[in-house]
């Protein structure tokens, strides 16, 4: 088993495991939004899980690193925190922050991160860009809120893994990128009712089952 040093503390990790997972399992929190333990090729798209590794000039995304014996890692340097705060502020700049009226209130990954990184839950200092329409009801079972979605891709991943093909997908591009359910009307209603994994995995309040 590889032994690594994290913030001066020596920990044992399972070989083959991602650095992010190894730290999380030892109770060392690294902000992350797009990673799931089962992922063999993490998308590394949220750019939050930065750490510094001795011998590497720049911070790296911990979800993309496989643990190796002797790694010396710091998770809370000022460079790392700076990157994470900026990433979070950019996410908030396209977010309709209205926690009081959101089903994810108090169990939301963004709220947790804002607290951890001491970033106020506000559309600041950036401009705000919200997508239209703000609610997508095209799916027979799900309601989708683009302006709460952080485009982490977890919903696509779980649907794909469970059903072989995902009935959700990213669509459009740039600021207009959304999750789309194109073809949703033909979806087997029962299958969605029994599954609901996408709504459960959503770390914010962007995907909600219609039946409540």
């Amino acid at each position, binding site marked *: 088993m590889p032994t690594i040093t994290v913030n001066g503390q020596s920990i044992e990790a399972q070989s083959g495991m991602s650095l992010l997972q190894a730290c999380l399992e030892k109770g060392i929190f690294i902000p992350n939004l797009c990673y799931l333990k089962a992922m063999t090729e993490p998308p590394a798209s949220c750019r939050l899980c930065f750490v510094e590794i001795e011998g590497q000039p720049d911070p790296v995304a911990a979800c993309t690193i496989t643990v190796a014996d002797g790694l010396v890692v710091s998770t809370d340097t000022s460079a790392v925190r700076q990157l994470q705060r900026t990433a979070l502020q950019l996410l908030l700049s396209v977010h309709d922050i209205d926690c009081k009226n959101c089903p994810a209130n108090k169990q939301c990954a963004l709220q947790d991160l804002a607290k951890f990184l001491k970033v106020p839950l506000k559309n600041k200092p950036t401009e705000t860009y919200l997508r239209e329409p703000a609610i997508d009801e095209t799916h027979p079972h799900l309601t989708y809120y683009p302006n709460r979605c952080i485009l982490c891709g977890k919903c696509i991943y779980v649907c794909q893994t469970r059903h072989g*093909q995902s009935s959700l997908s990213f669509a*459009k591009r740039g600021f207009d990128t959304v999750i789309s359910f*194109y073809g949703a009307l033909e979806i087997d209603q029962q299958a969605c009712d029994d599954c609901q994994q996408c709504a459960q995995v959503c770390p914010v309040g962007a995907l909600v089952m219609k039946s409540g």
Partner: protein
Amino acid sequence: MNDVLTSEEKAILADIQQYLSESKRDRSRLIPVLQYIQARLAYIPYQSIALVAAHFNLAPAEVYGVASFYNQFRFNPPGKYPVKVCLGTACHVKGADIILENFERKLEIKEGETTPDREFSIERVACVGCCALAPVALLGESVHGNMAPSKVEGIFTRIQVEKEMEARQKSEK
């Protein structure tokens, strides 16, 4: 969505099916297939996405995800009078987004969409080459320069008048 297919479009769907049956199932053929449909129909109908998805063994959502990434693909049939609003640099600086918004509000559709009667569609385009006239909008082939919100109304009034004249000529014959 405007998904009522004309008989002509049905024939083209059959043609797409034929084209697919001759095309490899390799995913690298996905974009060429979509381009073929776009070239034949000037848009990618809902029904054809399902055909394409089945051919490549992909979910329709995934095919739409790929197609919607690119500007060259449209998902609504072009209207009889396609409105193209230039959002190139010069037009952008001159407030093209306000012109676009005016058309959207007037026709009650968004950019990329078509009115239910298939008369009008709205599209955004990049520089059309007459920046001196910015902001510019095209209605079919005719160029409208120095656009202003008030001119949007005028354009539609003119079309209305033309239509009425046409109708009158027909009934007189």
